[in-house]
C-alpha cells in the first residue's frame, strides 16, 4: 500500500486542561472516503483542525505527505460571519489564493476555474450575490466551491449538511462521490444514516477514535466504540443504520 496522505499518531489535544482528543491515531490514504461521526463536542472539529495544521497537538504527531495548499476545507458553519460583506464569487476565488501575492490583473486561468467551480455547485446565477443574502443551501454550495476550486488532493468537510435542504443534500453527496474518484475525502456529519451509502469507512470520535472499516454501523457497535450518537434511521429496518446502500 502507498504511504498515507496523512498519518496521525497517538495525538492528545486539550484547549485548556481537559483532553478533547486522547491517544488518537488514524491513517488517511489516497481515495479514502471517511465519514467522521460522534456526539456534539466529541472532538470532530478539533480532529480535523489538527489534520489541517490549525491546531498543534500537545502530544503525538500529525504527518502529511502533501502540501497544505493541496487541502480543500469547508469549515463548520459557525466559523465564519454569514453577514460579512463579500460576494459568492469573491469567496470562491479565495480558494485559489496562495501566499501573499500582489496581482492586479485577473488571469484567464483563474477566471475559468472560478467559472467552472460556480457551475459545478450550481451557483452561476448567484455569483454576484453577497453571502448574507443566500439561503443555507446556497451558502454551503459556495463554501463547497471554495473548497474544491483548487482541485485538492484531500477534501475536508465539517458538517456541510447543516441548514441545507434535502435536495441539496442528495446533490452534495453524489457530487462528493464523483469527486472521490480524484480526491480523498474526510466528511464530518451528524447524520450517519444519510452519508452511509457514499462513504467507505467510518471514524467514531468521542475523545478517542475508533476506526470502522465499513460504511455500515449498528447501534451496538456504536456503543462499543463509546460513540453515543442519535441514529436517524432512513430505512425501515430498526437498529440498522442503512437499508439500501451502494456496493462497491
Amino acid at each position, binding site marked *: 500500500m502507498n504511504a498515507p496522505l496523512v498519518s496521525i499518531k497517538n495525538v492528545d489535544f486539550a484547549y485548556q486542561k481537559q483532553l478533547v482528543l486522547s491517544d488518537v491515531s488514524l491513517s488517511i490514504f489516497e481515495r479514502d472516503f471517511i465519514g467522521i461521526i460522534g456526539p456534539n463536542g466529541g472532538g470532530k472539529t478539533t480532529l480535523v483542525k489538527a489534520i489541517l495544521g490549525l491546531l498543534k497537538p500537545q502530544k503525538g504527531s500529525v504527518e502529511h505527505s502533501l502540501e497544505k495548499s493541496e487541502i480543500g476545507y469547508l469549515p463548520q458553519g459557525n*466559523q465564519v460571519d454569514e453577514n460579512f460583506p463579500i460576494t459568492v464569487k469573491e469567496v470562491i476565488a479565495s480558494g485559489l489564493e496562495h501566499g501573499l501575492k500582489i496581482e492586479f490583473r485577473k488571469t484567464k486561468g483563474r477566471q475559468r476555474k472560478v467559472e467552472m467551480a460556480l457551475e459545478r455547485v450550481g451557483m452561476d446565477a448567484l455569483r454576484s450575490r453577497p453571502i448574507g443574502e443566500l439561503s443555507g443551501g446556497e451558502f454551503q454550495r459556495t463554501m463547497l466551491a471554495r473548497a474544491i476550486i483548487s482541485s485538492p488532493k484531500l477534501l475536508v468537510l465539517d458538517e456541510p449538511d447543516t441548514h441545507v435542504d434535502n435536495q441539496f443534500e442528495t446533490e452534495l453527496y453524489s457530487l462528493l462521490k464523483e469527486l472521490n474518484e480524484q480526491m480523498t475525502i474526510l466528511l464530518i456529519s451528524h447524520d450517519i444514516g444519510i452519508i452511509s451509502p457514499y462513504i467507505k469507512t467510518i471514524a467514531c470520535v468521542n475523545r478517542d477514535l475508533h476506526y470502522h472499516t465499513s460504511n455500515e454501523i449498528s447501534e451496538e457497535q456504536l456503543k462499543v466504540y463509546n460513540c453515543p450518537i442519535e441514529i436517524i434511521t432512513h430505512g425501515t429496518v430498526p437498529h440498522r443504520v442503512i437499508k439500501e446502500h451502494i456496493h462497491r
Partner: protein
Amino acid sequence: MDLLELFKYGFIQHAVLAALLMSVACGITGTYIVSRRMVFISGGITHASFGGVGIGYFLGFPPLAGAAVVAVLAALTTENLTRRKVLRNDSIIAILWSLGMAIGIIFVYLTPGYAPNLMSFLFGSIITVTSTDLWLMLALALTVSAVFILFYKPILYVAFDEQFARIRGIPVMFINYLLIILVALTIVLSIRTAGIILVLSVLTIPQNITNLFTNRFSHIMIGSVVLGFFASLLGLILSYYLDIPSGATIIFTLVLLYLVARLIKVVIFGR
C-alpha cells in the same frame, strides 16, 4: 457671507483638506473595522490613547505623538492578549480603555498650569489643524490606500475566514498586525479632527449608511470615503454658520444622514 467666500479662508481650506484626508483613511479602515466587528476594540484603542496625550503634556512633547505611541501599543497588546487567550477579549479592551483614560487624567492633572487644547483632543477641532497635521494625515491616507490597494484580496480573505486563509498560506498574522496598527494610526490622526469621544462615529456611521445599499466590501469602502467627506463638509459649514463646535456637528450630520438613508431605503425598497 456666502459659501465661496468662506472657502477663501486659510483655516477653512485646511479644514476641508483635513476632512478629505480623514474621510479617506476612516472610510477604508472603518470598513475593515465594521466588517470584522472590531468597533469595540477601536473604542478601546481610541480611549487608551488619551494616556499618551496626558504623558505628552506632562513631558512637553506633542500630545498627538504620545497618543500615537500609546494607541499602537494598546492595539498590539489587545491583539496579542486576545490571541493568547490570556483574558476575555472584551475585558482586555475595557481595562486598556479605562487605564489609558486614567493615565491621561493623572498626567494632565500633574502638568503645571492649564492644559491648552485639552478640549480639542476630547472633541476634535478641525478648524485649527496645522500644516504639519495635514502632512501627517496625507501620509496616513496614502499609506492606508496603498496597503488596501496592494493587499486587497488577502485582507478581505483574512477578515472573512482567518483559518481558511491560513491554510491557503496567506500570512494571517502579518495582515492582522499590519491592519491593527493602521487602525490605531487612523484613530490617532482622526482625534485631531473628530476628537477621542467622537472618532468612533467617523469610523462606523458612513460604513453603516453605505451598507444599507450595498453588501460588497469594496463598495462600502468607496461609498464611506465619499459619504464621510460629504458629511464632514456639510457639518463644517453648518457649524460655521450656527457657531457650534465642528466635531459634534459633523457627527450630528452623519447620524442625520443615516436616518435619512434608512428612510429612503424604506420608501424605495420597502424595508
